[in-house]
Every structure is written in structure tokens, then in C-alpha cells.
């Protein structure tokens, strides 16, 4: 089979994986090698679906012995199959990298024969890439649940980021749809990777040349909308994952109808929940950068995110007792909770107000989205002229503000947040 054909098959098989980021690690190039990484990551292109293309995202092979119902590569699916040799994939990576098409390699694999054999082939490829081709660019590798911990360890010494997919938001769903995978088989490598990273960091403090284990951290992803979990359950799980496994990122992937299985939503007329995915990313953002707790964002009375509003607006509307906030006095945490004020503009407010009291015009210059923020703030005791709205009116105003963004095909995870660069 020609290389071009293999590439098509194995990129097609990998495209449903949500993560394509190259962030979390800054490593400059060294003479005699090729490649570097930057902490913020880098998008090299955007595909027609609006997603960032940062890494050459492919499977080592799409031949699989498992039969996970939600996956295109499941054993029972009739599909062209292919496998890269380690050498082929190295040549391809280097050819793309030198031309600046990509930031590195995202290597995953279906389970060929068994998890150990699969992982060994991935290791072979990465070892060749690092040692023979002297590649210093970004590598994200998928750890295969069920593989021998020694192999997962080797994988993590070659890759910059490791991930294990949690796949579905609950153990019941997993048992139902991925009978070959056990929750424990997924959590065990996650735990191993967490501990590996911690130990490696400590060793590096003592000895600069200590081996680096997954220095760009660990991530995971789950499919949303294939099964019945609420947003509240998903966010609670996410928060748990961040806390327990110290993950860098949790990715959400709106389920695409790839199967006729009666256990899954029928593909006819199924709309992938893209807006829901988008709202989950926004809520995830609140957990990671805005000091929110999952329990604050959603509770028993409201188990799902309001699709019409970004979750921070939603929270503010339910907690009008915290507002209005006086921008010339409020502390950082309080400012962060104001809709229309982001991490950057909150910092700028703190810096700029030392030179004198801020007014609405000044806030605009600092990058505050006044259209949203105006309802929730005062400047030196004053609200924006003529703005006196009751809670119902407020909801309508805020929903109207978002409506134009939602009329079109729904925005993708990055559209609201990224100010250049992969997150």
C-alpha cells in the first residue's frame, strides 16, 4: 500500500480524538537535533471544521481486536485497515516537521493483537524518532489501557504528553459500550502516569539530567452525548480528574453518529451536541482559571448548562446578590466572576487603577467586554447611564447578546477563548 493511502486511512481513523494541542512544555532546540516546543503550543492550521491542527494526528494502526460500540475502528466495523511501519511514520513526521506543517506527532493506536504488543510498536517508532532522527519536537502519545506498566513507563520517557482516554462519563456507560475496557484498566495507567510525573519532577530538581517522564503532563478525553449523563455529573467527574490525577486538560468530544448499535443514539437525524460541548469547555475553563467549584456552576436544581448563555453569565444571574461589583475596589477573585471580565482584563484593572479611578471608557480600553459587564459593575459608585434592568430583562439582554454567535453553525471549543495559539 502506498504511504499516501495509509496516511489517509490512519488520519481518518484518528480524527475523532479531540486533543490536538502541543502545549505544556518549553524546550528550545539544540545543535545537532531538530525541533523545539513552546509552553503555549502552536496551531499550524485550522481544518474546515474550525479545529486547530497542531500535530500529525494518526494511529499506528486501525486494526483492532476490541469492539467498543462508539468507535469507528471497532472490530465489527467494515472499514479499510492499515498500519504504519515505525520507519514510515518517522519519515512522514520529519518531512512534515521540516516544512513547518506540524508541531510534532500525536500517536495513538487501535489494539493490534494485545495492549503490550501495540505499545511496543509505538515505543519502537518513538525511539527511532528521538534517537536516530534526533527529533526534539512535541510528541503526544496515548497510553493503551491494559499494557504492562513497564511499557507505559518507556512510552512516557519518549513522549512529552501522555493521555489515557476515560472514554465515557461513567463506569456504567463504559461497561455497556466498551465491554473490553474496565474502569480500573483506565484509571491504573492514569495513576501510574501521575506518580511518574511527580517523581520525575522531584528528580529533576536534584539532578538536571534526570530522565523526563511526560514533562508536558497528562490529559484525557470523554465522549459527550452518546450516553445519558448530565452536565453536572460530567463537571463533577472533570473536577475529580483534575484534583485526583492532576491532569493538564480534560477534553470533551461531541459524539458523532458512527454506529448503528441499539445502545447508542440512532444515527438518522442525530445532531452532534456541539453547543453542549462548547458550554462544557467554557465551564471547564471556569474550573481551571476562574476559581470556580463544579458545585457552584451546577446543582441538583439545575443539572445542565443553559445552552443559551455562557456558564459564567448563568452563575451571575443566579447570584445577583454579589453584584454590582465596584471595579475600583474589588479584589482579583471578585473581578474574575464578573461576566465580560477575563483573566487578562482583571489583571489589567488591578494595574491600571493605581494611576487613578477607572471609568467605563477606560475599562473598554483594558479589554473589558462592556456589553456584558455593564450590568454587573459600578465605576466609582456609578452604573452605566440609564441601565436599570430587572433580572428577567437582564436574562433577555444577555441571551440576545449571544444569539448572533449561535445563529451560525455552532462555535468550536476554541472560538471564545483562544487569543492565538493552542490552549
Amino acid at each position, binding site marked *: 500500500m502506498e504511504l*499516501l493511502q495509509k496516511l489517509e486511512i490512519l488520519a481518518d481513523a484518528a480524527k475523532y480524538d479531540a486533543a490536538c494541542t502541543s502545549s505544556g512544555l518549553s524546550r528550545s532546540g539544540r545543535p545537532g537535533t531538530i525541533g523545539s516546543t513552546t509552553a503555549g503550543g502552536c496551531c499550524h492550521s485550522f*481544518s474546515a471544521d474550525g479545529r486547530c491542527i497542531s500535530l500529525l494526528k494518526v494511529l499506528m494502526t486501525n486494526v483492532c481486536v476490541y469492539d467498543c460500540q462508539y468507535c469507528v475502528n471497532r472490530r465489527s466495523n467494515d472499514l479499510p485497515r492499515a498500519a504504519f511501519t515505525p520507519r514510515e511514520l518517522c519519515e512522514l513526521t520529519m518531512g512534515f516537521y521540516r516544512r*513547518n506543517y506540524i508541531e510534532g506527532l500525536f500517536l495513538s493506536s487501535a489494539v493490534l493483537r494485545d495492549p503490550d504488543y501495540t505499545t511496543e510498536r509505538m515505543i519502537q517508532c518513538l525511539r527511532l524518532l528521538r534517537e536516530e532522527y534526533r527529533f526534539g519536537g512535541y510528541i503526544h502519545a496515548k497510553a493503551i489501557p491494559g499494557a504492562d506498566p513497564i511499557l507505559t513507563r518507556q512510552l512516557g520517557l519518549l513522549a512529552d504528553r501522555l493521555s489515557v482516554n476515560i472514554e465515557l462519563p461513567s463506569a456504567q456507560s463504559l461497561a455497556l459500550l466498551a465491554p473490553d475496557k474496565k474502569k480500573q484498566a483506565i484509571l491504573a495507567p492514569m495513576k501510574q502516569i501521575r506518580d511518574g510525573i511527580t517523581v520525575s519532577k522531584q528528580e529533576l530538581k536534584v539532578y538536571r539530567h534526570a530522565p523526563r517522564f511526560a514533562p508536558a503532563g497528562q490529559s484525557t478525553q470523554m465522549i459527550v452525548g452518546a450516553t445519558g449523563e448530565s452536565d453536572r455529573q460530567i463537571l463533577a467527574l472533570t473536577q475529580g480528574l483534575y484534583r485526583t490525577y492532576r491532569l493538564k486538560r480534560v477534553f470533551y468530544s461531541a459524539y458523532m453518529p458512527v454506529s448503528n448499535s441499539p445502545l447508542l443514539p440512532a444515527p438518522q437525524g442525530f445532531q452532534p451536541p456541539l453547543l453542549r460541548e462548547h458550554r462544557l469547555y467554557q465551564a471547564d475553563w471556569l474550573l481551571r482559571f476562574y476559581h470556580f467549584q463544579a458545585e457552584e456552576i451546577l446543582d441538583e436544581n439545575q443539572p445542565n448548562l443553559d445552552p443559551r448563555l455562557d456558564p459564567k453569565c448563568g452563575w451571575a444571574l443566579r447570584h445577583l446578590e454579589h453584584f454590582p461589583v465596584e471595579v475600583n475596589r474589588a479584589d482579583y477573585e471578585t473581578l474574575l466572576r464578573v461576566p465580560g471580565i477575563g483573566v487578562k482584563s482583571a489583571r489589567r484593572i488591578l494595574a491600571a487603577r493605581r494611576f487613578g479611578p477607572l471609568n467605563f471608557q477606560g475599562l473598554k480600553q483594558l479589554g473589558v467586554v462592556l456589553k456584558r459587564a455593564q450590568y454587573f459593575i459600578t465605576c466609582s459608585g456609578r452604573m452605566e447611564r440609564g441601565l436599570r434592568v430587572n433580572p428577567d430583562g437582564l436574562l433577555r439582554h444577555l441571551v440576545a447578546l449571544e444569539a448572533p454567535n449561535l445563529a451560525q453553525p455552532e462555535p468550536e471549543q476554541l472560538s471564545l477563548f483562544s487569543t492565538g495559539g493552542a490552549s
Partner: protein
Amino acid sequence: MSWTQVSYLYDGSLAGFLTCVFEAYTHREEPADFTPFHQACASFYAQRSIETDQAKAQRVYRSLEGKLGKTGKDWLLRGFLTCLPDRELWLWRFLRLGYQRGPGFTRDLTNPAVCQIHKAVLALNSEAHQFTGFVRFSQLEGVLVGTITPKNRVLPLLRLHFCSRLPQEQFLLYDKAHREALVHTPGKWAILPMEDFQMGQADQEELAYRKMWRSFYHTISIEGRYNPRCRMTHMPKRYWGDMTEFAPPEQEALEE
């Protein structure tokens, strides 16, 4: 007493601009505008031609960090690379403010001069960051060559990134908008003015890689998530002209 308003003609270089600053302070002149020699035209104000003087420029340059602080100096130097309209005039106002107030003045983001320069520098930085991803090289006779058409002069910002990333490679990156090129061979680099540059013929291997990249680019997109508006937000059309994935498929050279 207010300073006399003068219109400065200079060579358009950073050293030239810093010389103007030196002259303005010694002669107590308030620049009303700055014009590069080759764009000179009649002015409402008294015109003065400033010859670039390295020693004077150095004196101003050395004062920057102390007077403006690290951030102020960085913004001034980067500001010079931006496409901000009346760029030199805004930089002059920015610099005067810094000289009056001292380091820390950059936090006063509601001041018009600080705000203008800050925004322009952010735009420059973000454009440079985008180009670290959007640059496309072709390998022609062992040399990597690429072209870009940026709004701001991003090559000085891209230099470190690409030289560090590709230390063993020979490459040339041409800025079509500002007619200058970043050239690199192992251990050495330069940014040179270059009036024109034409890309050479691609060989079989190069064509094969372009084809594979285009194919990967189209394959990786999920049909059910088609969202051209979102793509356009992240990667505006102005970048597409220099990118391999949007070039029309080439005829592969016929085998002998």
C-alpha cells in the same frame, strides 16, 4: 515654554528614529511628523533632515531601560516593527511620557499613547505567533524556502524561533510585504533587504510531501462539524495565499 514643531525626515531605520529622538531633545523640538526620505513630500511644518548617527542613537538606546523600564523598552523596540498608523509619532509620545514618568508608566493602559503602543505590540506579537505555525517551507535543492505576507515586520520576532528549531537547516523566509528575508545556515543568520524573490521548481519528493499534507489536511476535518466561519476566525483568508494546503494541486512531473 513649548517646543518648536518640526517635521523630521529620516532614513526609516530604528537607529535613524533614535537619532531623531536625540535631536528633538537637544534642540527642544516637538516632532509633528516623521517621514522616511523616500516618501518625502511638502509639509506644513519646517522640515529637517536627520542623518542617522550611530553614536547618538546608541546614547538614546542605552538610556531606554533605565528611563522606560524593561517593559517600556521592549514595547518601544517592538512598536517600531508594527504597522500602527503614525507609528513614529506614537512612539515619540510614548517615549516622552516614559521619560517624564519613569518605569511603570506602561501599566497606565488608559493613557492614549500607552494604549496605542500596547495594542499595536499585542497585534504584532500575535501575528508573529500565528506565523510560527502558518509559515510553510518547501524543500528546494536541500534548502527550506518559504514566503509570508504579514501586516507587521515579524521576521525579527520569528528569527529566534526558527533558528532555534531548525539549527541544522539552511533556510530562507521571505517577507513579501516588507521585502526582506531571514536567511539561516547552521550557526549564522541575517535579516536582509531583498527586492524580489521567486520560489524555484519543486522536485518529486517535494511534490509528494505537498500532496500528502493536503490529503491529511482534508482528511482530519470532521464533516459533521463543518464550520468555515470558525476556521476563518482563527485563520483569516489573508494567510491562505502562502499556505501549501490551499495551493491548487500540482501536476506531478512525468516520470522519465
